[in-house]
């Protein structure tokens, strides 16, 4: 219900109540009063007739009775007046022929007993048709009703118009202005100068609009600044990774050449070379991750989707991770390697994703823990691959931070990595039109899963 209706409703209701009251309460009362008056008057007339009629009845002078009653009918002819005289045995004495006119709802019937010395001699029956009077009175009432109603209606309409001018129209203007504002149209002139509450409302609205605009502008400014900074950071990281990779390749290359000449070195030297190579590979790995992230954020990472045999990817991953599993004395329960799932994915990137999840499961597992690999088909024809560990598990807050760049859950430095592995994983899964998620219970372990579309052979 809009405000106009709300304002108009009580006015219309008042009109309705007035009309109903007048029409259904006062009108019947007034009409009834009119009827009572007619009855009283007719009764008076009849009472006055009694002595003359009594004399006529007593001596049988019906001629006189007829003259009297004929005259009465003649006088009242316009009221559809009917009068009948009966003797005490109920035999009609007047008129000669009984009127056959039917009773209408407007017929008033009256009876006057003719008594002589307390002895009834007969009675008069009078029927008066007060239709014309009824209609006259009704017509008068109706005109009064209409007159008062139109006056009342006019006043109320005037009130409504004033209300409309003072309250409704400004309110609607403000409403329209807020809608415009919501659509992003900033140039609004409300043109409301009133000093009343509505004017104040308009001014407050305008004030609010101004501060909204200011806030919006500063936000836009800040967002663009932030975006610029982020881009600069990504550029920097990207460039830096490239720069770092070149010397790293030299280090690793020359390290490997040294390792090939192993017979020239003693054992300590060979151990040192191994350390150099290991640290170098680790560092290269980190650089690659940072490079990946910056590529992803810059939207430069290319994905090529194809049909991928899950088993094939998984076997390559398990070869790479088996040494770590061994080192940490973990048990691997593999429930999917022997299945023949084919998914739509980028082979290399899927391998990277699975490796990341597996290496996390190794890294954050407890000693002599267990890693479980599962695969199941979801309702929407996706394959859900899950990696479950028996580590410390994650709190809700930790889960919320998981996929944010550079957030490392435990601050102790025993655990390797940059803290962007899961972020990259998430981005990669999403680039492959998949989903990633985690369920975790503190003290029992975590279950990371990804969902990828199954390859449709058709």
């Amino acid at each position: 219900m809009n405000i106009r209706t709300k304002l108009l409703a009580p006015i219309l209701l008042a009109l309705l109540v007035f009309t109903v009251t007048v029409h259904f309460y006062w009108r019947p009362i007034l009409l009834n009063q009119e009827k009572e008056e007619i009855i009283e008057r007719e009764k008076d007339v009849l009472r006055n007739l009694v002595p003359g009629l009594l004399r006529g009845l007593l001596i049988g002078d019906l001629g006189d009775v007829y003259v009297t009653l004929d005259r009465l009918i003649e006088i009242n002819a316009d009221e559809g007046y009917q009068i009948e005289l009966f003797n005490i045995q109920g035999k009609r004495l007047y008129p000669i022929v009984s009127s056959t006119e039917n009773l209408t709802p407007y017929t008033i019937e009256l009876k006057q007993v003719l008594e002589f010395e307390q002895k009834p001699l007969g009675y008069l029956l009078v029927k008066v048709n007060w239709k014309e009077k009824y209609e006259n009175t009704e017509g008068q009432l109706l005109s009064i009703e209409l007159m008062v109603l139109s006056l009342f209606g006019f006043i109320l309409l005037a009130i409504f118009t004033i209300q409309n001018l003072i309250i409704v129209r400004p309110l609607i203007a403000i409403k329209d202005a807020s809608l415009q504002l919501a659509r992003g149209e900033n140039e609004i002139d409300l043109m409301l100068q009133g000093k009343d509450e509505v004017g104040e409302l308009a001014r407050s609205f305008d004030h609010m609009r101004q501060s909204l605009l200011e806030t919006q502008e500063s936000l836009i400014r800040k967002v663009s600044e932030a975006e610029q900074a982020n881009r600069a950071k990504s550029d920097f990281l990207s460039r830096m990774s490239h720069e770092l990779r070149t010397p790293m390749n030299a280090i690793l290359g020359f390290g490997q050449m040294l390792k090939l000449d192993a017979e020239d070195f003693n054992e300590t030297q060979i151990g040192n070379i191994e350390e150099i190579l290991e640290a170098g590979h680790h560092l290269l790995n980190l650089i690659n991750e940072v490079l990946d992230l910056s590529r992803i954020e810059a939207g430069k990472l290319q994905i090529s989707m194809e049909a991928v045999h899950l088993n094939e990817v998984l076997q390559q991953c398990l070869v790479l991770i088996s040494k770590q599993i061994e080192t940490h004395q973990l048990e691997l329960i593999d429930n999917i390697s022997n299945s023949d799932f084919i998914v739509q994915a980028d082979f290399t990137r899927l391998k990277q994703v699975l490796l990341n999840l597996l290496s996390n499961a190794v890294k954050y597992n407890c000693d002599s823990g267990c890693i479980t690999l599962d695969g199941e088909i979801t309702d929407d024809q996706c394959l859900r691959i899950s990696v479950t560990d028996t580590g410390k598990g994650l709190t809700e807050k930790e889960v919320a931070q998981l996929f944010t760049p550079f957030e490392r859950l435990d601050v102790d430095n025993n655990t390797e990595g940059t803290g962007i592995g899961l972020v990259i994983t998430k981005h990669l899964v999403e680039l492959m039109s998949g989903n990633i998620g985690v369920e975790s219970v503190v003290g029992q372990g975590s279950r990371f899963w990804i969902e990828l579309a199954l390859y449709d052979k058709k």
Partner: protein
Amino acid sequence: MFRKTVSLLMIATLVLFSSLALAESDKKSYTFGVVPQFDARRIHSIWQPILDELQQRTGLKFSLQGASSIPVFEQEFAKGDFDFAYMNPYHILVANQKQGYVPLVRDIARKLYGIVVVRKDSPVHKVEDLNNKQVAFPAPNALGASLLPRSAFINTFHIDIKPKYVRTHTSVYLNVVMGEVAAGGGVQKTLSQQRPEVRDALRVLYETPRVSPHPVSVHSRVDKKIRLQVKQAFLDMGLAEEGKTLLAKIPMKKIGSAEMDDYTPLAKLDLESIYQE
């Protein structure tokens, strides 16, 4: 409104009559009584022009004498209050006996008779059927409507009826129509004046023997010369077109000389026994 009009008329009539009484002062004025068959106003409107005409024709002076009712009129002529009087045929018998009134003129074109009416659907088909029944009459001494029928019931049919006197001819007919009485006495003229629904609901059961109608009579104290003068004036009026019109209102269709002998058949009807003084 109705009552007001009536009282105004009554006052007007009173004033009229008193002024007539005053006019009597300078010259010998003859009183002229008229039987009050109609209301005073009507009687005045019929008879005053006739008396004016008589005055012109004779040079005599007449004053119209009203009576409030027939019994009062009867008492008045019994005392000899009127010099001249228009009375019913039975009255002339009484008046002749008591004061020596003699008839001067009468309507010679028609005869007076009474009728007995019953409802059209009445089981009464002959007068004898009315034995011991209630019969309405206007008044005990109305000649045509009451005296003649009652005389016939007694003297001709030898039946006994219960009379109900209802004041007017109209009331008689209405009482019969409404079944209040078995039959009613009236005269042909008043019957034909009734409204159709009354007239058509009635059947004439019996017509009485015909008698000579109302005479204008003169008291024995009036000088014979004057009597003749007045009689001639009436007869002359009957010849003139204008006078005829006036007389027709009495009603007298054709005026002619009246003798006491005209009314002797009436005496044989033995009306005295049923006449109520």
